[in-house]
């Protein structure tokens, strides 16, 4: 059987980054993509952190169609009738290339065209149905009656990774380990975005929301500014939604979010141009699959490389780094002629040495800590309530500020043993 070196399933950031490095080393590589073009099935919140992948990815991303450089970080706790927000900006965020908002149909398409200009085949409209096997090793892919035999298959087929599951590298999909994100892209003129979000040309905002946006369920809201569009969405844990009584209709969450006073003026006149949904891995380090088998590697979301730390969400830079690292391991495997699981294990080792698994492991306890309705109902109700009471003046005499604060802290339960233990446990996460 005539084999090419590598076939990559999925022209997302993991697959394309893998192809970039492989083609740089002169390996034969084909990328297959089920969408009409690379990016046409992909969704992000979202923002891409560039710093972690600067050393490996800056050449590949040179000239990439990023939307805006994030110079403001905002977080809001939404109570049912009030909210409190933090707005951070700094010279450092403004002066350095730290993170950018992106739209995947643009970014992935641009990257695939860049690869094709380098001679890499990126085949669109191509759904892979199965893996080819030979002597207990993956030996290529099958799509309908067509087969592409290859020494190595890279499953970069996204969060659901049917290929990773067929290879037996991933556990069955469990509701607790995933969230669903629902997003609208809304058109708004560039200058209006600058004015409303208090940023300059090319500068943008990443705004995350916790609390009433998911009606107490694990998850949150997000708002990212793109060049002349906004990405607005809600993420909710699938297991948490299933456990909620009474049941909540997921498709209504975003609409309720848009009605919030905090958003109404920001969105005024903005026209929705697209609605999308995507599943997100939420189990963190403990949700990572087996990274390779005989003749196969997993990269990006397919491997479960995503991290939700409550105040920020990461995935795309893990996808890029893991795709590139997989490629390096394949180059070594080719040199030694060993494409078995053993021959590919350098992939996992390299990832372990890099920020990818280091960052994921460091935040290993975050998903467990966030699996707690304190963050989705108690704090988002209590903090804004506290501020509201402190700032409200009427005909009734008010005690001294200190006394008022103390009284409110006590009556809100913030000083209860439960909350203090929660605070104390922070050092463990």
């Amino acid at each position, binding site marked *: 059987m005539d084999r090419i070196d590598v076939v990559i399933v999925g022209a997302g950031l993991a697959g394309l980054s893998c192809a970039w490095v492989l083609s740089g080393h002169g390996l034969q590589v084909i990328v297959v993509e089920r969408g009409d073009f690379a990016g046409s*099935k992909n969704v992000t919140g979202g923002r891409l952190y560039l710093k972690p992948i600067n050393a490996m990815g800056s050449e590949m991303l040179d000239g990439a169609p990023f939307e805006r450089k994030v110079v403001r970080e905002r977080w809001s706790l939404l109570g049912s009738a009030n909210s409190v927000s933090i707005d951070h900006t700094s010279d450092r965020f403004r002066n350095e290339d730290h993170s950018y908002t992106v739209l995947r149909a643009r970014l992935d398409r641009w990257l695939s065209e860049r690869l094709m200009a380098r001679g890499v085949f990126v085949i669109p409209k191509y759904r892979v149905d199965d893996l080819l096997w030979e002597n207990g090793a993956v030996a290529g892919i099958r799509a309908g009656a067509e087969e592409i035999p290859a020494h190595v298959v890279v499953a970069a087929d996204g969060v659901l990774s049917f290929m990773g599951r067929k290879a037996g590298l991933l556990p069955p999909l469990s509701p607790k380990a995933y969230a669903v994100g629902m997003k609208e892209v809304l058109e708004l003129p560039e200058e209006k975005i600058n004015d409303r979000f208090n940023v300059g040309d090319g500068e943008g905002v990443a705004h995350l929301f916790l609390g009433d946006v998911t009606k107490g369920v694990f998850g949150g809201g997000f708002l990212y500014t793109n060049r002349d569009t906004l990405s607005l969405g809600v993420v909710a844990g699938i297991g948490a939604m299933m456990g909620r009584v009474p049941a909540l209709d997921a498709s209504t969450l975003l609409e309720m979010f848009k009605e919030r006073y905090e958003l109404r003026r920001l969105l005024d006149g903005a026209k929705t141009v697209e609605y999308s949904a995507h599943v997100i891995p939420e189990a963190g380090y403990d949700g990572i699959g087996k990274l390779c088998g005989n003749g196969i590697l997993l990269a990006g979301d397919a491997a479960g490389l995503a991290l939700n730390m409550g105040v920020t969400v990461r995935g795309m830079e893990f996808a890029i780094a893991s795709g590139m690292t997989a490629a390096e391991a394949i180059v070594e495997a080719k040199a030694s002629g060993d494409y078995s699981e053993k021959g590919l294990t350098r992939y996992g080792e390299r990832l372990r040495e890099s920020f990818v698994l280091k960052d994921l492991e460091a935040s290993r306890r975050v998903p467990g800590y966030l699996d707690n309705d304190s963050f989705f109902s108690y704090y988002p109700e209590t903090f804004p309530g506290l501020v509201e009471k402190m700032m409200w003046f009427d005909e009734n005499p008010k005690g001294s500020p200190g006394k008022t604060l103390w009284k409110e802290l006590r009556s809100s339960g913030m000083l209860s043993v439960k909350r203090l233990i929660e605070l104390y446990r922070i050092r463990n996460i």
Partner: protein
Amino acid sequence: MKIDEKLALDAFKTDRESHILINHDICRSRCTTRHCLTICPGHLYTFNEEKNEIVVEHAGCLECGTCMIACTEGAITWSYPKGDFGVQYRYG
């Protein structure tokens, strides 16, 4: 904005053959929760009282896979639409 108005904004290329199959026997005999009716971001699942079965409108599927994950009884067989079909995001 209603959910069908949102879906109408997206570009879909619809296969006549559905990529979502429902095993109604499992729904009737084992499912007591019907999470599919509320968990789908496109609100594509409905219950047909007359036929006593779950109906899914595959044409508006956003291809997230949430229904398959939430159907822990395993009544939903879900695959990606064939190449050249399904939703095509222009922004993503």
